[in-house]
């Protein structure tokens, strides 16, 4: 018998197949839509550029090199009013990142603790957490930031109250911390024999910090190597050598030696003139913004954590309990790791929210990205389109970076099925 397989007719490709052949039609439609969307965007962008040029404001970015001319009180890198708008933008960006980072850390702590407490069997504790969540979540965050700012400035003493024979206010912690309504002044680490800074163009890195971090990392590496060695000895002989003392010594002693060698001492803030000088200053706007954002976003994380915990099958906790694991450890070792899978995606969006909400800073005088680039720079140069596009671009980049790193973390804790 001849072979029964039917050979499909070998057709040569022709253009009408793009429309009538099911194999190609989908592709054709997608390409056409893509071209339409892209040309739509191009038309909008081109139209905007042409019209801006027509009123004498073509899109240009060279104003970023002009002198900014304004001061920023909180600058993590060196800055003064003769620097460029570009550098002012960088200062604002770092202020945004600082408050976003501080806020995310604090909100997470509030959220995890609060989420666990919200499920507490203790009636009072769980109701208090419910109260906290409902109050903070249901009032706009801008109001909370303003409340924090005005409460702080109203309650904390003014710098001039520290003056005189019998001052109305005194410094705390052995005269090293000053709490004023301008901000909190903390003691700063100083070196009498400093090593200097490395100038990497945009900003300077202190060598002392690098050396200390290096020593710390080295100590931790040594401790881990030491623990691995102890594991090996334990496996061979059944007896585990004590590692704790060597680990502590490796981590603690080298930095202390270096600190002494560099002449480490603490610089205390002092009241001179109108304000305290010296020390590390956490300004009132920073504190208010940080508190407001953390307390507000914390409520959402509380809910995320609660829903995460509730999503873990009750049997898991019961099984752990049956094996004799105590409730605290059950939560830590059994429930939370599984809840993490549910919590993380919500956590990511809360981190994004917090970062974006930090742009409310201008209401209380915190100089973030929106206040510098999207605020004073915009107003002084009159380049609305450019500055707003740049501000949007920067926020987009920050958000995408947060999303990207959180997604990687999510993948690591994902349920791996065998």
């Amino acid at each position, binding site marked *: 018998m001849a072979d029964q397989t039917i050979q499909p007719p070998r057709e040569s490709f022709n253009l009408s197949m793009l429309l009538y052949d099911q194999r190609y039609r989908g592709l054709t439609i997608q390409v056409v839509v893509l071209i339409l969307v892209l040309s739509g965007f191009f038309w*909008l*962008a081109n*139209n*905007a550029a*042409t*019209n*801006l040029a*027509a*009123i*004498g*404001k073509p899109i240009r970015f060279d104003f970023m090199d002009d002198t900014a*001319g*304004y*001061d*920023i*009180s909180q600058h993590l890198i060196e800055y*003064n*009013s*003769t620097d460029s708008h570009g550098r002012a933008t960088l200062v604002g960006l770092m202020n945004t990142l600082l408050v976003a980072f501080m806020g995310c850390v604090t909100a997470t702590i509030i959220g995890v603790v609060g989420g666990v407490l919200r499920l507490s069997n203790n009636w009072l504790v769980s109701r208090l957490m419910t109260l906290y969540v409902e109050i903070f979540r249901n009032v706009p965050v801008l109001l909370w930031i*303003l409340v924090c*700012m*005005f409460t702080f*400035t*109203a309650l904390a003493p*003014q710098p*001039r109250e520290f003056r005189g024979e019998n001052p109305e206010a005194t410094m705390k912690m052995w005269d090293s911390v000053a709490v004023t*309504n*301008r901000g909190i002044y903390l003691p700063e680490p100083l070196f009498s024999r400093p090593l200097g800074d490395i100038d990497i163009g945009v900003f300077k890195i202190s060598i002392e910090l690098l050396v200390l971090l290096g020593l710390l990392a080295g100590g931790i590496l040594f401790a881990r190597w030491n623990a691995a060695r102890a594991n090996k000895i334990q496996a061979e002989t059944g007896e585990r050598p004590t590692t704790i003392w060597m680990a502590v010594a490796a981590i603690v002693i080298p930095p202390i030696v270096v600190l002494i060698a560099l002449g480490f001492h603490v610089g205390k803030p002092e009241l*001179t*003139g*109108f*304000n305290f*000088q010296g020390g590390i200053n956490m*300004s*009132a*706007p920073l504190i208010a913004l940080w508190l407001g954002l953390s307390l507000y976003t914390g409520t959402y994380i509380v809910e995320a954590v609660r829903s995460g915990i509730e999503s873990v099958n009750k049997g898991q906790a019961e099984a752990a309990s049956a094996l004799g694991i105590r409730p605290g450890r059950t939560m830590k070792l059994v429930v939370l790791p599984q809840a993490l899978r549910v919590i993380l995606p919500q956590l990511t969006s809360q981190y994004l929210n917090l970062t974006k909400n930090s742009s409310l800073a*201008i*209401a*209380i*005088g915190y*100089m973030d990205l929106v*206040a510098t680039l999207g*605020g*004073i720079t*915009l*107003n*002084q*140069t*009159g380049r*609305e*389109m450019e500055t*707003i*596009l740049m501000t*949007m671009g920067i926020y*987009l980049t920050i958000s995408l970076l947060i999303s990207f790193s959180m997604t990687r973390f999510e993948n690591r804790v994902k349920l791996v099925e065998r």
Partner: protein
Amino acid sequence: MKTSIFISALAAAVALGGLASAQTLDDVKARGKINCGVTEGTLGFSARDGEGKHQGFDVDFCRALGAAIFGDSEAVEYIELSSKNRFTALSAGQVDLLYRTTTWTFSRDVDLKTSFVGVNYYDGQGFLVPTGLGVSSAKELDGATVCIETGTTTELNLADFFRVNGMSYTPLPVGGTTEAKALFEEGACDVYTTDASALAGVRASLKDPAAFQILPEIVSKEPLGPTVRHGDDQWGDVVRWTQNALVAAEELGVTSANVAELANGTDNPEINRMLGSEGALGAMLNLDADWAARAIAATGNYGEIFERNIGENTPIGLARGLNAQWTQGGLQYSPPFR
């Protein structure tokens, strides 16, 4: 979401381009009212009164313009703008002009594509401090925390002043006047700085004005005046000469009380030309012959506007100073009506 924001920003720019080039005077006449950009609330210059109506020095100039064009000083829509969005609103065509305590500077006039067509108030930046601070000069402010209403030339003058005098300071730039004032009252800053005229208003609105003083130093020149879009000279002329008419009226002794009588003709040819009984100045502006007479009748001359809103008998209590007529040693001077 990301794309939709992008699209709306672009769409805004498209609209911005589309509206700006038209002939403003024709637009205004067709619309039947003027869109006048004013401050969000500076006592004396533009603020809402108890009935929610806008009152103030800047507002009166807008009203005069309404009277000049339409014969109706109420044919004005007041649009409150922050210092940050005022130029955007102007170039996008949301307002026809700004009477918004806006300082005439080189870069705003040249680079921002706006045109300043006059100065209705010669101002300068000053400092407000609590009397308890024990400071009598701005030169003693080294190390002070300074509250600023952000988005103004104020920040730049402040930076310059402290730099030139080798002093340090902590700026606390706050988004709105209300917030800045509240923080100043609570002592979050030692000094409040803005234009001296607005400072008088701020001081008058504090709970205990007597506990605060304005320091003698004026650290900058702040000529405040009406702003229009660059390139529309016809509209610019209308705004410029309406204001000039109010200034000239004071110099020539024309007031809201006697303008109706003088408009019938006097033996002073300049008054006659201005009020329309001689020549055809109004027609040159594409306005009625009695445009200036209507403006003066609606608001009074420059001096009347000043005394009614910010003069020494008001809570603001500003002296004429630089804003006196040139014949009185001030800077207010109108080119001739000829």
